[in-house]
C-alpha cells in the first residue's frame, strides 16, 4: 500500500506570493539615477493576493477584493533543500486550486467576491488561517486558526516517503501569542526544521545502519534543526527581532526513520504515541510552568488548569534563554499513530490515554486517512471552544515492518 496519488493531491500549504516582499526590490545604482526610477520600486512592491490574484497597494494588510490577509508569509530561502519535491508538488496544488473562486473550508460552498461563503456566510479563510498537508498517504496534518484568535500563529511542515513507515518528518511550531510576527516566526521555523531533518535522511545502507548510530545521528540533527529554525525566525522577522518581546515560537518535531522515532521539543507543543492497543504515551516533555509544577508533585489536572499553566519556560526566538531541543529516541511497538500537536488540541484532552480514546473514536468515524483524522481532531477542538490555534499532524505508524530498505 504505497501512496495513493489522489490522497497526496490534497496538500495545500500557504504560499508566499513573490511580490509580497517589497524589501527585496533590487537596487542598482544605474536605475537609481534614471528619472523614472522613483516610480519603479512602487510598482514592483504591489502585493498580489494569493487567493484571488487582485493587485493591492504595497502597504495593504488585507486584500481589497476578497479580504484575505496579506501578511507576507515567509519563504525559507537560504537552504536549497527546502525546494524538495514535496513542497514543489504542494505549491502546484495550491496554485491550481486558488483559481478565482475558492471553496469554503467549512461547507464546500464557493467564496464570493466580498470574502464570505455564498452558502454558509462564514468568512473566507486565508491559506494561512487554515491549511492541510498530506505529503504521503500515511502522513497528514491540519493547521487551523481556531475560533477565538484573530491570527493563526500555529504552523506545521510535513515531509514523507510514499512507502508507509519508511521515512517522515513532522514539525509543529506554535507562535507565542500577543507578539506581532509570531505567525511568520512559526512558519519559518517549521519549514526550516523540516528541511534540515529531511536532509538528514541516510538512504545509503552501507553508511552504518546500526541503531545506536541512527539514534546519535538523529539526536544531532534534531539539535541542528532547532538552531536552523531559530536562524530562520531571525531571517523572517527582520526588525521585529529588536522588540522587547520579539516573535518566537515553540517547536515539536518527530522523525520516523524505519522503526526508530526521534522526537524533539522546545516549549509546550507535543508529540504523542497513540497506540491502537496497549499503552499510549506523551513522548515530549513540556517546558512549561505546569510541567515544572507536576515535577514538584502537583496533579496534571490541577497544574494544567492553573492560570499560569501556559507560561512556557523555553522557546525558539530572539530572546530565548535556551533553544536546545530535548531529544528522545523511541521504538514504538505495534500499530498506532505518531501525533504532533499544539496546545490548541491538547488543552482539551491532555492525558495520553484520553487523547488515544479521542483518536480511536475519530478513526472509527472518518477512517484512517491522516488528513481526515487531523481535520476531525481540529473540528473537535473547535467544538470545545477553539480557544487557541489548533494544529494536528499524524503519521500512521506500524512497527511490524522493521525490515531495512533494500539496497538500490
Amino acid at each position, binding site marked *: 500500500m504505497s501512496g495513493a496519488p489522489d490522497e497526496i493531491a490534497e496538500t495545500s500549504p500557504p504560499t508566499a506570493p513573490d511580490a509580497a516582499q517589497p524589501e527585496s526590490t533590487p537596487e542598482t545604482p544605474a536605475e537609481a539615477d534614471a528619472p523614472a526610477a522613483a516610480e519603479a520600486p512602487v510598482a514592483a512592491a504591489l502585493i498580489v493576493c494569493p487567493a484571488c490574484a487582485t493587485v493591492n497597494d504595497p502597504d495593504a494588510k488585507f486584500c481589497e477584493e476578497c479580504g484575505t490577509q496579506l501578511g507576507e508569509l515567509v519563504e525559507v530561502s537560504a537552504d536549497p533543500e527546502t525546494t524538495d519535491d514535496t513542497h514543489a508538488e504542494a505549491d502546484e496544488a495550491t496554485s491550481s486550486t486558488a483559481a478565482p473562486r475558492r471553496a469554503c473550508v467549512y461547507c464546500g460552498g464557493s467564496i464570493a467576491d*466580498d470574502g*464570505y461563503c*455564498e452558502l*454558509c*456566510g*462564514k*468568512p473566507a479563510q486565508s491559506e494561512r488561517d487554515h491549511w492541510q498537508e498530506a505529503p504521503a498517504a500515511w502522513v497528514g496534518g491540519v493547521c487551523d486558526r481556531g475560533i*477565538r484568535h484573530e491570527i493563526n500563529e500555529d504552523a506545521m511542515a510535513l515531509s514523507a516517503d510514499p512507502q508507509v513507515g519508511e521515512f517522515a518528518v513532522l514539525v509543529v511550531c506554535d507562535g507565542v501569542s500577543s507578539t506581532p510576527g509570531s505567525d511568520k516566526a512559526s512558519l519559518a521555523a517549521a519549514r526550516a526544521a523540516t528541511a534540515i531533518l529531511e536532509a538528514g535522511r541516510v538512504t545509503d545502507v552501507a553508511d552504518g545502519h546500526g541503531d545506536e548510530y541512527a539514534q546519535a545521528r538523529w539526536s544531532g540533527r534534531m539539535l541542528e534543526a532547532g538552531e536552523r529554525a531559530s536562524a530562520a525566525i531571525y531571517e523572517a522577522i527582520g526588525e521585529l527581532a529588536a522588540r522587547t518581546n520579539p516573535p518566537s515560537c515553540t517547536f515539536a518535531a518527530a522523525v520516523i526513520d524505519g522503526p526508530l522515532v526521534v522526537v524533539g521539543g522546545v516549549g509546550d507543543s507535543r508529540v504523542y504515541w497513540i497506540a491502537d492497543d496497549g499503552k499510549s504515551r506523551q513522548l515530549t516533555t513540556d517546558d512549561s510552568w505546569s510541567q515544572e509544577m507536576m515535577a514538584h508533585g502537583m496533579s496534571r489536572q490541577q497544574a494544567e488548569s492553573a492560570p499560569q499553566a501556559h507560561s512556557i519556560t523555553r522557546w525558539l526566538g530572539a530572546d530565548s534563554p535556551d533553544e536546545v531541543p530535548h531529544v528522545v529516541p523511541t521504538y514504538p511497538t505495534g500499530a498506532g499513530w505518531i501525533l504532533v500537536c499544539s496546545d490548541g488540541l491538547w488543552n482539551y484532552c491532555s492525558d495520553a490515554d484520553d487523547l488515544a480514546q479521542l483518536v480511536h473514536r475519530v478513526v472509527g468515524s472518518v477512517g484512517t486517512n491522516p488528513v481526515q483524522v487531523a481535520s476531525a481532531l481540529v473540528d473537535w477542538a*473547535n467544538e470545545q471552544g477553539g480557544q487557541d490555534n489548533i494544529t494536528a499532524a499524524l503519521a500512521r505508524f506500524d512497527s511490524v515492518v522493521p525490515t531495512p530498505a533494500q539496497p538500490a
Partner: protein
Amino acid sequence: MAEFTASVFQNEFLSDGATDVHAIVTVTVAGAGQAGQGQGMAAGEIIIVDTSGSMTGENLGAAKHAASVAVDQILDGTWFAVISGTDTAARAFPYPNARLPMVQMEPGARAAAKQAIAAFQPSGGTAMGTWLTLARELFQATPQATQRHAILLTDGKNEHESAQALSQAIYNATGVFQCDARGVGSRWQVDELRQIATALLGTVDLIAKPADMAADFESIIKQSMGRGVASADLRVWAPQGSEVLFVRQVAPTVEDLTTRKTMVNPLTGSYPTGSWGDESRDYHVAVRVASKPVGSEQLAARVQLTVRDEVVASGLVKARWSNDDALTARIDPAVAHYTGQTELASAIQDGLAAKAAGDAATATVKLGRAVQLAAETGNDEATAKLRKVVEIDDANEGTVRLRRDVAKLDEMALDTASTKTTRVRK
C-alpha cells in the same frame, strides 16, 4: 451615470446563544438623471382624475387646474394619456377616436390635452378598479414606454364596484406601473387608496384643500420625471439554514416588503422597489441565524440593489458572537429608531381603526403608545397630528384622552401620515 451606494448600520456583536441579527441598510442614488433618458428607455405617464358626480363644483375645478399643471410638467418625449374616471373609465386624451393608446408629449399634444381636461363634465359614480384597468391596458399597449407611472385623484369611496373587483384590478396592475394616489376632501377612504399605493409602489396622501391640489400634482410629476433609474430591486441573501424574519422599507415611509419577495435562488429573495431618483431609502432587515460559538463570525445577509439583474450596490450584514456585554448589549441607534417608527405607524393605524369601530379603550391605549413613540423618536410631525386627535396628558408615559368632536380631516391626515418616518440622527 447613476451612482449607487449602500451603508449598513448595525451592532454586529451578538451575545452567546443569540440568533437574531438586525440592520438598517441605507441605499442612496445620485446622478439618476431624468426619466426615460437612458439608452432604449422611454417614460410613460397617465393622469387619472375622478370626474364622478360628487366632484361637482370646487373640487372638479381644482382638479382640472391641477391636471393641466401636471401636463405642463411632463417632459417632451414622454408617452402620456389622461383618464377620466367614474363608475367606468374613459380615455380623455388621446381623444377616444385616436388610433394610438398613448402619444408622446410635444407642445401640440400638451395644448390638446389641456383642452380635453377643460372639457371634463361631472357625472356618475366611482369604480377605481376600472380606472386602473384602463391605465394598465394603455401602458401594455405602449411597450415603448418602459418606465410607467400614474397619478390617481379621487374624492370619494369606491362605491360602484366590489372590493374584490378593486383588489383584482390592483393585483393585475402590480408590476405594470407605479401609482401615487391622492384623496381630496374627507369622504374618501384612506385604506382604499393605501391599498392601491402600497401595491403599486407609490405614496398615498390627503389634499385637504382643493387649492393645494395643483402644487401637489406638480411635485408628484416632477418627482416622477426626476427618476432616471427606471426600476431597481432590493436583493437579500441570507445563509443556508437561516430565516429572513422581515425586510421593510423604513424611510422615507414604512412599507413592509416581506410579502413582495420572489426568490432569485434558494438563498436570495428579490423585492421590487420601483424607480429611483436622487434619493436615499432606508431598509430594516432582520435575519435569524443559528447561534455560533463565542468568537465566531459570519455573514448574516448581503443586501444589494440591482438594476436589470446587475448588482449596483451591496451592503454586508454581519454577526459576531462575543461574551463581552459592553459590545453585545448596545442596540444600534438606527435600528432602535426605525423599530420605534415602525411601531409608531402601526399604533396610529390600529388606534384609529379601534376608534372608528367604537372601541375607545383600545384606541386610547394605542394612540397613547403612538404619542409616546413619536416623542421618543423625535417625530414632531406625528406628535402635532396626534395632538389634534387626542389630549396629551403625559407624552413620556403615553397617557392620553380621546378628543371629542375630532375633525374627520384631522384623523385622515394622521392616518395618511402615519407611515412617514423621520430620519435617524446619525
